[in-house]
């Protein structure tokens, strides 16, 4: 058990610090690391080692959850590059916001639609298409990693947060439609 809580998530998983990563490799490393640091293995070890095992387990889980999801991974990579996203900043591309309004309106109309499930799938399909396009541009911009590209990646991450929230709302709405 190597005690290094200062490692970046990428270092911990022995992966290059890049947006594009091999999900299968990530999952395999996760299982290995989990096994290596699991508190059960340190049941008879010293207090200090047991505490460390618990800390490392938490670190491994946090790292995995961060690296696994594209949005969190992009945010994390930007932070490693020193690009911080200010959540209080409300200025956004007006065209993007108009599209958000429109998508919200479409989602609000799902319930009253002749076929609510089809209407919901329509909205969700648009959101998923946008998400795919954002992931593709993050791959390019974070790969390039120039100041300009990082700035663009930051805007993409901010937009993806809206899409993620809307996709969550689609999921909630589907639950309610199923149970109503």
């Amino acid at each position, binding site marked *: 058990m190597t005690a290094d809580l200062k490692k970046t998530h990428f270092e911990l998983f022995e992966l290059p610090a890049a947006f594009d990563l091999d999900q299968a490799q990530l999952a395999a490393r996760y299982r290995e690391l989990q096994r290596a640091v699991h508190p059960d293995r340190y049941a008879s070890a010293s207090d200090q080692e047991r505490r460390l095992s618990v800390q490392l387990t938490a670190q491994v889980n946090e790292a995995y959850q961060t690296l696994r999801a594209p949005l969190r991974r992009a945010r994390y990579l930007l932070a490693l590059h020193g690009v911080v*996203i200010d*959540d*209080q*900043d*409300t*200025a*956004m591309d*007006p065209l*993007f*916001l*108009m599209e*958000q*309004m429109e998508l*919200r309106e479409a989602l609000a109309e799902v319930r009253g639609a002749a076929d609510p499930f089809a209407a919901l799938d329509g909205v969700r399909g648009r959101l998923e298409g946008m998400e795919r396009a954002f992931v593709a541009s993050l791959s390019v911009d974070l790969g390039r990693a120039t100041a300009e590209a990082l700035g663009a990646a930051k805007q993409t991450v*901010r*937009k993806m*947060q*809206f899409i*993620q*929230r*809307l996709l969550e709302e689609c999921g909630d709405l589907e639950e309610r439609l199923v149970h109503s």
Partner: protein
Amino acid sequence: MAYSDKVIDHYENPRNVGTFEKEEENVGTGMVGAPACGDVMRLQIKVSDDGIIEDAKFKTYGCGSAIASSSLVTEWVKGKTLDQALEIKNSEIAEELALPPVKIHCSVLAEDAIRAAINDYQAKKGGKGGA
């Protein structure tokens, strides 16, 4: 977390929900969004020839506090000059609605929306050589 009575009142009976024609030259449109919570707010002002905000409309997708904040500011800006409207601070909105600290960003969104609407109006007028 409990909403204050004023938030509930604005949430249940929102004032001035709607739209003005964006292209009209005496209309300013402000669109803002909060990435952290995914809230989107559109606030529009209609300005008279002598520079008074005579009417305001909003549409907000978000939590009760965001809706209440935008509803409240549409009431507040009416009858004000643009300069007076720019003086509205998010802290005043938060205080009026008794917003808890975690909802302060909703009042920030509303303040930013007024600024964006006024900027849009002034940019339109500026383009025509006016004030």
